[in-house]
């Protein structure tokens, strides 16, 4: 795959607000005029990307007497209330569902980070017969349309006796092919010299992996972690099929339930979506520095 070529680490993306002049990434000064149109454009894109979320938030804060269909629309709730959130919690055990989602997502992060780092390392660094075949296996797995095999997956899971368990929810995505390939690229981009020194010192393959290679790809690992968390937290079709016991539902299933039962109640549904999306945004906000560093390592390439 020729597109999977090497990428140099990006420069750390630090704000330079304290400096007397505004400069770009090469340390050159940015002209005031340019600065103005840049901010204008940034704000326009900002409105487009967060606008829909804010509108949802605003809808969720509007009380029952407030018109949500009016034209021209009212962006701010007249009398903001958390009443709709309380109603969500009354209707579905939203905190239990969030906990289930959290368990699934956390397990998915652990298995994906460990499994794809191991497999990625083998694909990138270890020499053995069948390496190309193994790589091909992961590439093909990435191309399989999930919606088409969901029933077959369910049958497999049932044969394993794991349907209607949270383990069953985690397993199919436990080590994503995409993540394995991401890790493979990250390991491939490391210079060989780093490991050679350890090799000469007599370190075995496990030690080289754990002490030398792994610490160098922390950024990519962060990317895999975020992808894994997002993937598990956001997944809908699979948990819907594999879980039948409502006490094991994840948040997206609960949300669908809410939507199915109270579709006409926009405020309630809006509150539900905010509950589903807020933790992810918070998590991403906390991890974004590592994430963008991982990106700089070329993690997403491939």
């Amino acid at each position, binding site marked *: 795959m*020729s*597109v999977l070529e090497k990428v140099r680490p*990006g420069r750390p993306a*630090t*704000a*330079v607000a304290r400096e007397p002049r505004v400069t*770009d*990434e090469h340390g050159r000064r*940015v002209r005031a005029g340019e*600065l103005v149109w840049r901010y204008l454009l*940034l704000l326009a*894109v*900002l409105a487009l*990307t967060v606008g*829909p*979320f804010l*509108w949802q938030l605003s809808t969720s804060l509007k009380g029952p007497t407030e018109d949500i*269909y009016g*034209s*021209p*629309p009212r962006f701010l709730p007249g009398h903001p209330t958390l009443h709709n959130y309380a109603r969500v919690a009354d209707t579905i055990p939203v905190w239990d569902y969030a906990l289930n989602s959290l368990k699934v997502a956390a397990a998915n992060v652990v*298995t994906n980070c460990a*499994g794809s780092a191991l*497999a990625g390392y083998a694909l990138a660094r*270890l020499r*053995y017969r069948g390496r190309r075949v193994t790589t091909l296996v*992961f590439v*093909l797995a990435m191309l399989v*349309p999930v*919606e*088409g*095999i969901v029933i*077959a*997956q369910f049958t*497999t*899971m049932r044969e394993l006796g794991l349907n209607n368990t949270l383990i069953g929810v985690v*397993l*199919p995505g*436990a*080590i994503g092919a995409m993540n394995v390939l991401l890790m493979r690229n990250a390991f491939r981009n490391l210079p060989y010299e780093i490991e050679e020194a350890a*090799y000469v010192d007599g370190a075995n*393959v*496990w030690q080289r*992996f754990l002490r030398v290679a792994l610490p160098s790809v922390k950024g990519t690992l962060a990317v895999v972690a975020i992808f894994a968390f997002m993937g598990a937290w*956001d997944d*809908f079709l699979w948990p819907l099929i594999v879980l039948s016991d409502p006490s094991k539902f994840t948040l*997206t299933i609960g*949300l*669908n339930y809410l939507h199915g039962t109270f579709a006409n109640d*926009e405020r309630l*549904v*809006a509150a539900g*979506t905010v509950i*589903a*999306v807020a933790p992810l945004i918070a998590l991403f906000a906390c991890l*974004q520095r590592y994430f*963008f560093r991982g990106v700089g*390592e070329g993690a*997403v*390439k491939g």
Partner: protein
Amino acid sequence: MAAPLRIKRQLPFGPWLFAAPGLLVTGAFVLYPFGSTLANSFTDRRTLVPGHFVGLANFRELLHDEMFWTGLRNSVLYILGVVPALVVLPLLLALLVRKNIPGITFFRSVFYTPVVASIVVVGLIWVWLLDERGLVNSLLESVGIGRIGFLSDQWLLLLSAMAVTVWKGLGYYMIIYMAALANVPRELHEAAAVDGAGPVRRFLSVTVPAVRSTMVLVAALSSVAAFKVFSEVYLMAGPSGGPAGEDTTLVMLVQRTGTGLTGRVGYACALSVVVFAVTVVLMLLVLRADRREES
């Protein structure tokens, strides 16, 4: 993975142990189910009725199935509509967030939020926005354009779904471009600037060639995703795929024919096999185009 600490570097199956967990999961939950899907595509199996081998009958039926051609048309249209936008817009966005001006990290993270949100949430949000009484139509009406039935017209529905796909994908591909742009040597830009090239010419003659292979990659990733599109259209056009099912995509058709108590599992499996085959061909085409350009 017993006691991996004991692995000596000559130990021959060491590499397999590393790859084993990944292979096991992929094998058991992706490839094995896909294998049985492939096997089922030659049967007339239904949800509750075990099937018999019917040879290529499903694939022959497919050729005469009007809905299959509708699905193929929509999936191809989806590629044509979404891929150019996802190749170009995120690149422009990456250039925009590239300069380290104050607050830029904030903008970068925020531009990524649509990627983070679940597609179910995104679907609910946009259905509410594009509703006949939703925000977008309220705005359109208040500026005198009048309300538009985004969610009732066959083509507007498809366009709306594409817009949502682009909206959700912008941040993801922006990140890929940011990684690539980090590699463009700045000397190139400076040389071009000295030559008196304006920003547009610099973009076309320096930036684009430098990130060309990334553009190919983005085209590959986004076209595979676009061809397999399900959630956006399903959530916006509804399970039956818009008016008269005209917005059905191939994967929606797989889902609709194969599920439920009377699902035609065999036929749906044949459809998934076709989706898979087309995806592989798409990937190969893009990779070949890439190789040609490199040489």
